C-alpha cells in the first residue's frame, strides 16, 4: 500500500512549524516535568499521619498539594517553551 486512504491534507498555509528548520520539542525546561511525576510516586515521603494541617493528616494534605504542584510546574514549562512550539 502506498497511499493512506484516510489522509486528508489541510491547506499548507494553515499548517506551520513555529520555527522552520528547528522541528523539535526539545527544551531543557521539560526536565522540570519530572518533579510532579516522580514526587507523588515516593510513598515513604508522605505515608505518615503527622504533621497535620488544618486537621488533615500529612498523607492527605500533602498528596492533594501534588495537584497544585502539577499545575504550577506544567504551566511554568508551558510558558518557558512557548516560543518553540
Amino acid at each position, binding site marked *: 500500500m502506498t497511499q493512506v486512504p484516510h489522509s486528508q491534507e489541510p491547506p499548507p498555509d494553515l499548517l506551520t*512549524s513555529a520555527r522552520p528548520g528547528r522541528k523539535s520539542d526539545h527544551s531543557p525546561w521539560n526536565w522540570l516535568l519530572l518533579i510532579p511525576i516522580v514526587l507523588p510516586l515516593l510513598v515513604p515521603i508522605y505515608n505518615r499521619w503527622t504533621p497535620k494541617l488544618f486537621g488533615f493528616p500529612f498523607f492527605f494534605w500533602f498528596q492533594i498539594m501534588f495537584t497544585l504542584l502539577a499545575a504550577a510546574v506544567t504551566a511554568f514549562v508551558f510558558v518557558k517553551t512557548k516560543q518553540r512550539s
Partner: protein
Amino acid sequence: MNVTEFTIVAVAFAAVSVLGFWAHRWRRSSDVSLEQWALAGRGFRSWISWFVIGGDLYTAYTYVAVPALLFGAGAIGFYALPYVAIEYPLVFLIMIRFWSVSKTHGYVTAADFVRGRFGSPTLALAIAITGIVATMPYIALNLLGMQAVLTTIGIHGYWPLVIAFAVLAAFTFTSGVRAPAMISFVKDALVYLVIGVAIFYIPHRLGGWNHIFNAYDAHFKATPPGTASLLTSANQLQYITLALGSAFAIFLYPHAITGVITTRNRAVVKRTMAALPIYSFVLGLIALFGVMAIAGNIKPLIGPTGKPDTNTVVPNLFQHMFGSGFAGLAFAMIIIGALVPAAFMSIAAANLFTRNIYKEYIRRDATDREQATTSKVVSLLVKVGALLFILLINPQFSIDLQLLGGAIILQTLPSVMIGLYTRWLHRGALLAGWAAGMIVSIWTFYLTPNVATHVAHWGGTGFALSHLGLHTGTALYIGFIAVLVNLAVAFGGTALLKALKVAEGTDHTAAGDYFTDVADTRAPEPAVTAGA
C-alpha cells in the same frame, strides 16, 4: 421518593437536554463529516477545551466510586490522587505530538495513527477493539453512578435510566461532540458550586476535620488487615503502580484522545494540560467525602440488585447533611456528570468502529458523509449496549470489566505512545506484545480474589506476587505487570523480526508531522475541508 430532589434533578436534566439539542448550532459548519460531528472541526480554544476535556475525563462514576473506595478500603483508595496529579505532566509532551500527527493526516482515532505509522491495519484493528472493549463498561459505569443517585432519591427500577439514556442518545446523534462540550459548562459550574459548599459545610456539621480523620483512623484500626488508614508495607507498591499505570492509561482511552484532538492547536493542548490539575485538586476534595461518610456514620443503601451499593455512600452523605434543595442540586451534578463522559465515550467508540473496522474492512471507499452517518448510528448502538449490560447482566460484571478495561487499554501503550517517538518497534512484535499483555491482564485479574466480598476470582487489580512463588506480601497493579510483559515481547520480538528481515510495512508519517501546528490567531476558522 423525595419529590423536591426529583424535581430539581428532572428540571436540570431537561435544561441540559435542550442545551444538547441546541448545541448543533454552536460553531456551526455546513460540512457533514466525521471531523465536524466527532471533533467539532478541531476548533476548540483554551478555555473551552479546559471545560470540555475536564468534563470528559472526570465522570460521575469518579465522583461516587473514588470516595466509595476510600470509604471501603482506606488509604489504598486514595491512589486516585497521585494518579490524577501525575497524569498531566506525564502526557504533556506526548499528547502534543499526537495532536500534530492527527492534524496533519486527519486521524480521528489512536488506531488511525497506528495504521499510518506502522502500515498495519491488523495492529490498528487490535488497538480499535481494545478501545471499544475498554470503553463499553466505562459507559455502563456512568449509568451505575446515575443509578446510585436515583436509589438515594428513593426511585426504584431502571426506567429513569432508560429515559435519560434515550434522550442522551438522541442529542448526541444530532449534535455530536458539540452536545457534551456545551453541557460540560453546566456540569463544571455545578461541580464547583456543590463541592465548594460541601467541603466547608459537611466538616462543620461533623465537628471539624480533626474529628473526621480521627473517626476514620479509629474505623480502620477495627477492620481486618488489608484496609488501613495509612499504606502498609504490603500495598505501597500496589499504590504507586496503580497510580502510574492509570496515569498512562487514561490518555490511551478513546474518549480522552477524542477530547485532545478537538482542540485548535498545540498551545491549546499545553495550556489545557497545565490547567487540568485544578480538576484533580477538586477530585482530591471529592475523595474526602468517603472519609466524611465514615465519620458521619453513613451506610450504603441497598441497590436494585438487593445488595448494599457502596456507590450510594456519597449521595447518601449529601442526603443526610443537606436539605432537599441543595441535595437535589448535588444529585443533578452527578447525573449531568454522567451524561458528558457517556456522550464522549460513545462518540469515541463509534469512531473506532467507523474508521478502523467499517472503513477498513467493510466499505473501503466510504465517503466522509457516510462515515459521519455510520458513527452517529453506532454511537446509538453503543449506548443501547451499555444499557443492556446494566439491565440484563449483574452490574458487578460491568465493574469488573471496567477494572480490567484500565489494564487492557494500557496494552496499547507501546503502539500508540512509544510509536509517537520511534518507528523502531516492528508491527509484528507490537501485535505479539499486545496479545501477551492482554493475556497477562486477564490471567492476573482472574487469579486475584476479593477478600472483602469472599469472591475467589476477578476480585481486584492488585496481583499478589506470591502467585508467582515469591515469598512476599507485596501486590502490583495487574495492568503494570501486563505492560512490562508487553514491552519485553515487543522489544525482544522486534530484535528477532529485524534479524529475520521480516517486512516492516510503510510509515506514512514524516518526522515533521509530529510538530505541525496551527496559528493561534482569532481570524478565520480552520478551513480543514473534508478531502477523502
